[in-house]
């Protein structure tokens, strides 16, 4: 039902979405925490900056990332001069690109969730001997659970569907950087509509199943509100 190349593309897609979402969640958590709690004026600027990856068309953003990560770019060039390879057209480059593009979807829900967590519960936890890290995992994370879920789901789903950034910096290399969305695009370009529909359907069904599981599991948790 799926050509081996399509199956590979699907696998690359899910791997990419998973890895970039995971890294993004880890990296954004401290930043979102800072944003949620700082009173510095710089907060507004950072909040606005974080949203910018959204306002550029993905292909254009991808183009600029290509300039940055490629051999002539600041990042890629530095890497090359240190004896490494530049990052364009590699899976690593793809992960970086997806992360930048999904940044707003992770930062926003996390910041919101951290803001509504409030200080009181943290104070209580501190008097019960929980260290800052401990408090984060035992109090903040559970209370901000919906925020993490939203961040993860938006970032994951968005990476599944994104194509502009990926085709630019990934270069559509089968097995390495060819993801499902590009494979669908290729089928359409090659006028193979049947394959395009089939792959789109599989992508949608897989995602739907995954989302059902995630939201189904989420139902089990306690919903916590302000002033209950």
């Amino acid at each position, binding site marked *: 039902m799926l050509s081996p190349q399509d199956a590979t593309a699907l696998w690359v897609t899910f791997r990419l979405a998973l890895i970039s979402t995971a890294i993004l969640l880890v990296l954004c958590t401290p930043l979102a925490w800072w944003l949620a709690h700082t009173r510095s004026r710089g907060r507004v600027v950072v909040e606005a900056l974080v949203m910018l990856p959204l306002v550029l068309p993905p292909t254009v953003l991808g*183009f600029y990332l290509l300039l940055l990560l490629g051999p002539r770019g600041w990042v890629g060039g530095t890497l090359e001069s240190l004896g490494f390879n530049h990052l364009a057209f590699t899976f690593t480059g793809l992960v970086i690109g997806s992360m930048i593009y999904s940044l707003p979807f992770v930062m926003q829900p996390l910041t919101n969730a951290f803001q509504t967590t409030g200080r009181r519960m943290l104070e209580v936890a501190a008097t019960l001997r929980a260290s800052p890290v401990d408090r984060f995992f035992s109090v903040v994370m559970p209370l901000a659970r919906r925020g993490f879920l939203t961040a993860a789901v938006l970032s994951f789903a968005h990476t599944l569907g994104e194509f502009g950034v990926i085709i630019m910096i990934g270069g559509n*290399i089968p097995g390495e950087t060819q993801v499902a969305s590009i494979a669908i695009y290729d089928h359409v370009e090659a*006028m193979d509509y049947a394959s395009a529909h089939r792959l789109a359907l599989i992508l949608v069904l897989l995602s739907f199943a995954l989302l059902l599981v995630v939201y189904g599991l989420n139902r089990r948790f306690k919903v916590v509100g302000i002033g209950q």
Partner: protein
Amino acid sequence: AELRVAVAANFLGTLQQLAALYEEETGDRVTLSAGSSGALYAQIVNGAPFDLFFSADAARPAALVEEGLADPASRFTYALGVPVLWSDSVMDMGDPRALLAGDSFRFLALADPRNAPYGVAAQQILTAFDLWDALDRDRRLVRGQTITQTYSQIASGAAELGFVALAQVKDADGRIAGSHWIPPAELYDPITQDVVMLARARNPDVARQFLDWIRSERATGIIEAAGYQVSQ
């Protein structure tokens, strides 16, 4: 050996057939990466690991040669694109000018002339008919980002007709569904699609071998059957 080929989206389908045949004949592997010519060009400039670049125009391969990123000797025109006015429903295309001047359609689709060679041809044809300005003013011109988008917009029925590539509407048996009109070549500048071997090709000999094969009779036959012209 393995060949990595960047191919302009409109030629992807045809090159897939060619590559499959070639792999069968030689045992070499041909990996295709499709994209719009502009995107592929930008990628090559920024270090994309391709051996060959099948562009949808002549300008970008020329630019690569000029920048020293491609082998000048390898460059040639592998196909000439053929635009076609096409509708997937039954329309009287006997007098295309009258049809295009009339009210039997609401939208006409074409590729965006700003970046797609087929779009440029379509604009030239409409200008020759003296209809471009009126249609543009009335906001009846729907511009696709690529020629494939244009095809989709017509195939969905949302645009009643439009200019696409002949290669897109020809099915495997060489038949064309719906109604079509192939404009005479005098109405537009030729759509020259050039290929070039990149300077950083890892396996230049294999690449040259493939390019020679593309010029073989067997290959050109397939290209022509797909809806392109081949200039000898």
